[in-house]
């Protein structure tokens, strides 16, 4: 099981030379840690992941600073989707999946047997590749569904609803039809609805697994906008096939690669540097569009 067989219609890596990407990365406003609420940092230590006997990911260690956006890039089958799913324990839903290593949120291992896994997923939210709103619920119910699912009591639900939809950049489009079913929204709107839904339970970290791969370019830009807004308040980790996207939204970029064996993390650094002067030849080959 992996998400690697997705279509990748908007991948511009073939046409975009590395120099153009690095200038995109250099031009974007750099986030300075000020007095903003920045979410929590996440540290992955020595992550291995297996499907049955097949080792899919070997020894990945990565730090994600509070309030940063980190992009995970790499060709299909490199284990980046598998990696991101170990960060909120979604990996273990796949039968026969196993993992080793530690993921520290605020210094506490989320794989500690003492820890309540449902609480972990409240703190580390996730947005999936394909928009997946609950079709039996209205737009409003979708946004607030996390409260019901995790049995969180909260007053001022209306206020929370507006706040989440605003943060996800969807409020103006849906404020008059909160009671309509979510299935009537466009793909891009549905994905922003899913982001709003994740925000309602107030996560400190948001994982995004190729959130734009099923969307048209216009919707993609809107989501990227949303990501930039959100990054002021939380830590974001995004898997993407689209190097333009990595350059546009992320502060740091990690490059994953599998040379036929298990996926590995080849290199991580500030996005600007990964696209302008990568240290590893394989990263250079990938970002300059020579393969992938």
């Amino acid at each position: 099981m992996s998400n690697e067989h997705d279509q990748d219609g908007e991948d511009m890596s073939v046409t975009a030379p590395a120099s153009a990407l690095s200038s995109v990365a250099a031009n974007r406003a750099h986030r300075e840690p000020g007095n903003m609420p920045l979410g929590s940092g996440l540290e992955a230590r020595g992550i291995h992941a297996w499907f049955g006997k097949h080792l899919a990911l070997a020894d990945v260690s990565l730090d994600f600073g509070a309030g940063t956006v980190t992009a995970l890039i790499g060709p299909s089958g490199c284990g980046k989707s598998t990696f991101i799913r170990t960060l909120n324990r979604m990996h273990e839903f796949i039968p026969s999946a196993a993992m080793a290593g530690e993921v520290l949120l605020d210094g506490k291992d989320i794989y500690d047997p003492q820890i309540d896994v449902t609480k972990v997923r409240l703190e580390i939210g996730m947005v999936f590749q394909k928009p997946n709103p609950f079709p039996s619920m209205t737009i409003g119910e979708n946004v607030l569904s996390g409260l019901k699912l995790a049995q969180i009591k909260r007053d001022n639900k209306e206020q929370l609803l507006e706040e989440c939809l605003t943060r996800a950049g969807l409020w103006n489009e849906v404020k008059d039809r909160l009671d309509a079913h979510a299935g009537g929204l466009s793909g891009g709107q549905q994905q922003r609805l899913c982001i709003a839904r994740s925000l309602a339970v107030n996560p400190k970290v948001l994982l995004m697994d190729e959130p734009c791969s099923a969307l048209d370019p216009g919707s993609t830009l809107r989501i990227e906008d949303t990501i930039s807004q959100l990054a002021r308040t939380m830590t974001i980790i995004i898997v993407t096939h689209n190097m333009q996207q990595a350059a546009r939204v992320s502060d740091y970029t990690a490059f994953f690669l599998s040379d036929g064996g298990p996926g590995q993390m080849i290199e991580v650094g500030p996005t600007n540097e990964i696209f302008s002067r990568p240290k590893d030849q394989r990263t250079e080959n990938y970002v300059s569009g020579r393969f992938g």
Partner: protein
Amino acid sequence: MSMSSLVILTLIGLFLSLRGYQAFKSQGFHFITGVDWVAAQDGSGEKNVFGLGAMIIGTLVISATALVVGVPLSVLTALFLTFYAPERFKKFLISVVDLMASFPSILYGLWGFFVLMPMAEYWAKLIHKYLGWIPIFDVPQPAYTRSPFIAGIVLAIMIIPIVTSVSREIFAQTPLDRIQAAYALGATRWAMIKAVVLPFGASGVVGGAMLGLGRALGETVAVYSVLNIVFKVNFQVLYGFGGNIASMIVQKWGEASLSEGKALLAAGFVLFIMTLLVNMGANYIVRRTVKTGR
């Protein structure tokens, strides 16, 4: 294959309706709505009165009891098999449930009589004590054995395999991305099931329940073994008498006069039509659910 079963089905329907025609003709609408069944001796010149109503009502009361008890149990079983059972035992447990479908109904009848009845009598007393103010749970005299309630529970056990297996197949088709969405929002397994699986599977459960109903309507031997069959209208499920069409036919068949025999065949035709309609409805719902996935 499906052609030949259609032919057989049509022939059975024709046979029952032709043989029963006289009863329909002489009784008219009273055959369905009437609630008395008085068979005269052939040639005595007295008038036959055949009104199946009491047994139609009895059939519905017992079947409804079976659904009320059986469907929740089946849904829980299906949820357990799909989302809770350890992978290693899953196949084994599924085959155990399917095996239940292949037991002869007389075994259920005997089990119901000897094992279930003493327990169910106690439950019936409890229900009467606390819910007796609801008309259907009222009991005029303390006669709790051999009631429609007990027959309903036996039928509930008998429909569990079919309702469980249809529900299980629908639940297993719940889209993975919705399940993951719920988990990613911090849902427990049960919260996920309530928010995602049950809304998705609801119409499939309805279809499975109707297939179960189709089985419950026509069940004969098991009902015959546990129920005190009396030809009278009885809505009081805990009260110790009742009947359904099939068991009544069995009870009366041996001693029936020629004209009563025809009336029993006509009763069989009514049951045939009821079962056919319910099964067709169930198949339609199940097939539509499987196809559209919602």
